[in-house]
């Protein structure tokens, strides 16, 4: 990954407490897995930034390298990689995502 891409990724993570690297946008997701994670965050009324990797090939590949994770979507809370769709879904269903938000002091609908 070139420095420019890695800086772009780090910058997004720094500027946005909750960051979802996804295919499409929160309003128009273009993959079922991205849709699922985006909907969970919306359901919890979490303020998050969706980053459309389809618009930027370098970010799309770079984020996989950054987290050593081969798939999109990828959720980050305060710069910590939380997981992809399966993990986030499981955490959501067990209430662990809510606990994580609490720990990280991110406001959400209780």
């Amino acid at each position, binding site marked *: 990954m070139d420095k420019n891409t890695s800086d772009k990724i780090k910058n997004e993570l720094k500027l946005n407490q909750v960051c979802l690297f996804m295919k499409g946008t929160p309003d128009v997701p273009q993959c079922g897995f991205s849709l699922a994670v985006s909907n969970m965050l919306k359901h919890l009324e979490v303020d998050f930034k969706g980053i459309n990797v389809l618009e930027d090939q370098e970010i799309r590949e770079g984020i996989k390298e950054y987290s050593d994770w*081969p798939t999109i979507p990828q959720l980050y809370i305060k710069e910590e990689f939380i*997981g992809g769709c399966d993990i986030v879904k*499981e955490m959501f269903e067990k209430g662990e995502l809510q606990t994580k938000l609490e720990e990280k002091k991110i406001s959400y609908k209780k």
Partner: protein
Amino acid sequence: MTLKLEEIKNLIKEAIPDAEVIIQDLAGDENHYSATIKSKVFSGKSKIEQHKLVYKALKGKMGNELHALALNTMEI
């Protein structure tokens, strides 16, 4: 590009020999699968680490030949 169900199973078994692997072809298109994998190697590891072990077993095919593999990993 697609990947056969048996191929996925073999790759996982090769890397994680004690794994109990159940794979379903969700859409019948050899491209959207779900896998439940039970193994001792997962014990004490976070979900992220567990899924990374499976991705590693797939040797870079995840996200390339293999578009979608919903994972459910369990320790035994």
